[in-house]
């Protein structure tokens, strides 16, 4: 009896002759943080899109256990069900926040959108929730009515996180959430994410090429190379005692500051 939260079985995806994902299987439990690491071309981003239901695999299946306890195959869901899932149960934090944020809508409107989509019709309550979340992601309260166009990159990313977490999702997908940001900004953001994961008991699937980010945020790790999982296990174990040759190469290549 599969009691995992999300389960990927035999996922494969091809782009023409290139096999981006080869027969990949793994599970995520509630409250677990899984990092998928690899270099460019490893297939990690494709894998993330497959398990988030944003892309269909050529073979294999992804199943998710909903809040009602029922396990459903993503491919068998209707568009309406999939979107409802994305709105209430899941979050997706993109590397580029402008992909998710509405740039011509205020921060409050951005955070409140999911609540309004779920039927919240009280302006005062929506605004209060948005303000609360703005504080939680450490953005000053007086920026609530500003458009994200006036925000810095790090602030936009934090706003994107607030927008995704406001409905207390069970599972959050993150694609290089700190990519492209200044190092000092990254540190703050990582700390915020770490805290929120712990506080909210979120399950997280995080794609990153940065092993330090994986170590900080995840307790399990998948190492990918050319569409295959080379090694997997406890994050600190894989990073401190890598068994596979490729993992050893990856770990030894990381420069220490």
């Amino acid at each position, binding site marked *: 009896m599969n009691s995992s939260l999300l389960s990927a079985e035999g996922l494969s995806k091809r782009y023409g002759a290139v096999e981006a994902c080869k027969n990949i299987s793994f599970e995520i439990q509630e409250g677990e943080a899984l990092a998928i690491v690899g270099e460019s071309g490893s297939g990690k981003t494709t894998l993330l899109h497959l398990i988030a239901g944003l892309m269909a695999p050529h073979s294999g299946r992804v199943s998710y256990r909903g809040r009602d306890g029922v396990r459903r195959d993503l491919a068998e869901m209707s568009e309406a069900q999939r979107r409802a899932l994305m709105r209430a149960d899941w979050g997706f934090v993109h590397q580029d926040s402008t992909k998710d944020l*509405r740039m011509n809508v205020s921060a*409050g409107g951005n955070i409140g*959108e999911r609540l*309004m989509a779920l039927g919240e019709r*009280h302006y005062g309550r929506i605004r209060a929730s948005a303000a609360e979340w703005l504080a939680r992601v450490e953005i000053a309260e007086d920026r609530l009515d500003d458009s994200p166009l006036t925000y810095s990159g790090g602030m936009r990313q934090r706003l994107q996180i607030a927008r995704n977490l406001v409905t207390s999702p069970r599972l959050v997908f993150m694609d290089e959430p700190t990519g492209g940001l200044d190092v000092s900004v990254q540190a703050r953001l990582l700390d915020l994410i770490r805290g929120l994961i712990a506080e909210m008991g979120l399950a997280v699937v995080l794609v990153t090429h940065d092993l330090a980010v994986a170590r900080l945020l995840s307790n399990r790790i998948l190492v990918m190379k050319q569409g295959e999982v080379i090694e997997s296990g406890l994050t600190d174990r894989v990073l401190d005692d890598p068994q596979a040759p490729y993992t050893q190469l990856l770990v030894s290549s990381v420069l220490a500051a």
Partner: protein
Amino acid sequence: MTSRPYNFAYLDEQTKRMIRRAILKAVAIPGYQVPFASREMPMPYGWGTGGVQVTAAVIGPEDVLKVIDQGADDTTNAVSIRAFFAKTANVATTTETQAATIIQTRHRVPETALTEQQILVYQVPIPEPLRFLEPRETETRTMHALEEYGVMHVKLYEDISRHGHIATTYAYPVRVSGRYVMDPSPIPKFDNPKLADSPALQLFGAGREKRIYAIPPYTKVVSLDFEDHPFERTKFDAACEFCGATDSFLDEVVTDDAGGRMFVCSDTDYCDKRQAARNKDAAE
């Protein structure tokens, strides 16, 4: 050069049938935008081609047509369109709301209550209420199909956060029959309550955007709002200068350079009738 007579109401019969099929679909699914093959009309886009096509499809030789533009029968637009139908359909025309069987309107709903014998045809510029926040047609169609209207309330939220109240004063979005969210065309929000439970058939035509939608008679139409910011009808601080009405939509007219202004009923027919009644009373 001999001039050939136009087909009745300008459009050929097949086109009229196509438009009527679209209208039937629209009536069957209140508030849903039905795509239709909008024709080239002898006026440019933006001048009421959608409304004219709908009227042309439903008008018959016995009909009496009224055309108003911002409530007035005597503006250029209204006069042109009335003349157009007079020439191509040879129908009777009128400025009196009560005498008309078809009323084509740009941006107002008549003050006089309508009856089951009447059809109100609205001219619509942008039919898609979600367009301002979602530019992709593929996406807005999906949103309507899946009833994903959260984004409409985002717009209203923005209004309140910026202005302290919902600042949308015209083209105020409504929910029809509890299902589709619809743009009622740029009528003032003052007119929104008239859309609900009307005995008349209301048809909406957008020529450039190629969409037709409808509100069947006696249909529930609710203006979107928040629990703590409920929809409020506009109230005027003044009465009509000419007829004294306090319950009609008033146009503000600047009378001099010193800032003098007066308020006048936008619905010319309504105003005229009231003035006539007053004069009659005064005479007695």
